[in-house]
């Protein structure tokens, strides 16, 4: 009698244990599924458009991307910050044969200033000339709307971490980007052929942390562009340079 009661008690315990596992597993499964890749990108684009400011870094690896027709000056990296709606300051690093140099640039709308290579003196350039970072991140015509509109074949590859953003996990997405509009926007540095794209977007707040564009090349190793964004909504400002000679 005692043995039956004991066996019954054990059986009850085992069933309870199984039940607990099923309930816990069920609870885990009830986590909301991740949004659709297109939805993640759309929300991220909306988030970027709503930001008051952010810092950015654009870096090229692989084949050079020339800034001049003579193919002597190639773009290496630029780092700076954007202040909505149309102001940006950046330092652009360029590589010439046997020489690495930096110029500072300021863009306010379509107005553009850059420092001279040897004297560091500010000079204002005519509209349409130079590497204006303000136009690059214009909320209407800049990189973010292009990302939203010209992306295809988007896939969510899972959650990933990035070395440059310790302690954070991101949605990692991949797809293809039509390079025509990026070509115009980047002063001919990127595109115009279709590019492989990877994006890392922060869950819940949808901050865009990193974009990597890969341009395959028939001739060489190809070219990789990495863009990082951070320090969102900081108190930053961009003003015209204090002293710059008038337009030539």
């Amino acid at each position: 009698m005692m043995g039956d009661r004991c066996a019954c008690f054990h059986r009850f315990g085992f069933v309870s244990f199984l039940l607990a596992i099923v309930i816990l597993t069920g609870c885990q499964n009830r986590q909301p599924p991740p949004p659709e890749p297109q939805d993640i990108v759309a929300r991220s684009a909306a988030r970027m458009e709503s930001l008051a400011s952010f810092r950015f870094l654009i870096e090229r690896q692989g084949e050079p991307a020339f800034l001049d027709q003579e193919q002597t000056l190639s773009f290496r990296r630029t780092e700076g910050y954007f202040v909505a709606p149309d102001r940006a300051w950046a330092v652009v690093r360029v590589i010439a044969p046997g020489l690495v140099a930096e110029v500072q640039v300021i863009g306010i709308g379509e107005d553009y200033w850059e420092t001279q290579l040897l004297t560091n003196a500010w000079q204002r350039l005519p509209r349409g000339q130079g590497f204006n970072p303000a136009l690059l991140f214009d909320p209407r015509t800049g990189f973010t709307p292009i990302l939203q509109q010209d992306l295809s074949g988007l896939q969510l590859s899972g959650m990933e971490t990035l070395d440059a953003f310790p302690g954070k996990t991101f949605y990692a997405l991949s797809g293809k980007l039509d390079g025509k509009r990026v070509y115009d926007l980047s002063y001919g540095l990127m595109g115009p052929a279709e590019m492989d794209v990877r994006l890392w977007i922060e869950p819940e707040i949808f901050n865009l942390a990193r974009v990597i564009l890969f341009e395959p090349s028939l001739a060489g190793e190809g070219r990789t562009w990495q863009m990082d964004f951070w320090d969102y909504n900081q108190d930053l400002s961009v003003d015209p340079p204090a002293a710059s000679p008038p337009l030539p």
Partner: protein
Amino acid sequence: MKNSSAALRIALISLPIFIGALDVTVVSAVLPQVIYDLEIPLQSGLDDAAWLVSGYLLSYSIAMTFMGRLSDWAGRRRTYLAALIIFALGSYLVAVADQWLSRLAWQVVYLLTQTRVDPAQLSLNVMIAARMIQAFGGGAMVPVGMALAGDLYPPEKVARPLGLIAAVDTAGWVVGHLYGGVLTRFFDWRVIFWLNLPVCALAFGLIWIALKPVDRHGGGRGDLHTPPEKLNPGVSKGAARGFRMDWLGAFMISACLAFFNLGLGSSPDLTASLSDIQRQPWLERALPFLALALLSLALFIWRQSRHPFPLVPLTLFRQQNFSPALAANLMIGFSLFTAIAGVPVFVNTLAAKTLQQGAWDSGWLLSALTVPMAAASLPGGWLAAKLGYRFPSLLGLLLAVVGFSQMLTWQIATPYALMVPHLALAGIGFGLTMAPAAAAVLNASPPGERGAASALVIVFRLVGMTAGVSTLASYGVYRADALSLQWLSGSAQAVDLIHMGMQIALQVLHETFGIAALICGLAFFPIMLLQNIELKKG
């Protein structure tokens, strides 16, 4: 100990000393390629990159001031091998500085400060730190080697091995730029540092075995030829009984040299604005550091006069000829390194078409300076023995001044063939002066203190060299700023920037060569103070 085995040990310890000295100048020829590969911007990073040379010289000099004395306490073999390991570790760290080491440093800086530093600038800083580690080991081997010579040879015979170690050290930095130029013609510049590792490993094994008997016979650890009470007569035997390392003194002399270097090397960025330069001129930037250097030096001297085991026996400075000869060595080091650092700048900025060609051209062109210098040191020593110190030294300084004056005529289109005789003239001049100036210091020292005296000759020359390269970098950048603002003001679009940049570089180089000639001329004064005492035997 038999003479042959002692000579073998001296030969063995000379090999790493040679490699360490080689790395003093090895970077001067390949520096433009390193700057380019690390992507250091011309405007903001040029004066920082000069620290790859001056940082090495600084750390090398610092190690030389106290590591010999440390080996009295820790043992010659142990200290020498530790220095060798530090040198090898530093070489490895330089070779990987812009690779995993910089990535790791970036992560650490980000975790500590939450700021994303420029990877290029960080790579440069990591490499400078690695070069300084390397230099500390390289510099430490010299005085420990000299102290070892003091253990292996009796006082009357020690001058020859000491001279050999000093000559090996000089030979190293004399051929360093050529070695760097040749290697980078065929390989990546990192190979220079990778190659140090097998040499160090081999040397470690051989020296480990060769110096075992020296340890058994008490090399270091109080087995000094000069008892402490003799090193500092003001201290009683009782106070000098147990050896105490003067760490505070070591700190003070290190601080003095570091502040001195920071002061001379303080400059604005290459593209500082006129208001930046006007707001804080060079002297104003340099003065606080130079004042701190002077204060540290005063404290060091005060400390040395009281410590029972001084790092630098101050009694030496009371000897006839000692101080003027060291002052001459300092000035020679300054002028010499202005040429050693200036010629690669000239070649890379104005003559060479590619950086690789620039490294190669700089390497062999500098040999036109250093090989005649090494060759002329023999007649310099011979003339000093026959005619006294003054005549060959003054003749040498005169030739060096004439050589530098000819270098002031260099133009962008000047062919190398015309530069060679000018450099050779300066080199012969330095060679004729260096040997008598070093001999004057050695001969002014009592036999038991010749190790310390030999080390001081090298330290003073190194301090002069460090000052030379720092001045070249800071003055050069400062003048380039001023000239750019003066010559390029107004319609910048119409100006051929590259051509104008070359003209500015040429003007700045002319001015620095002029300064070198002036310092050479000033060295006439301490040389005139040298007394032609009879040369001592050995």
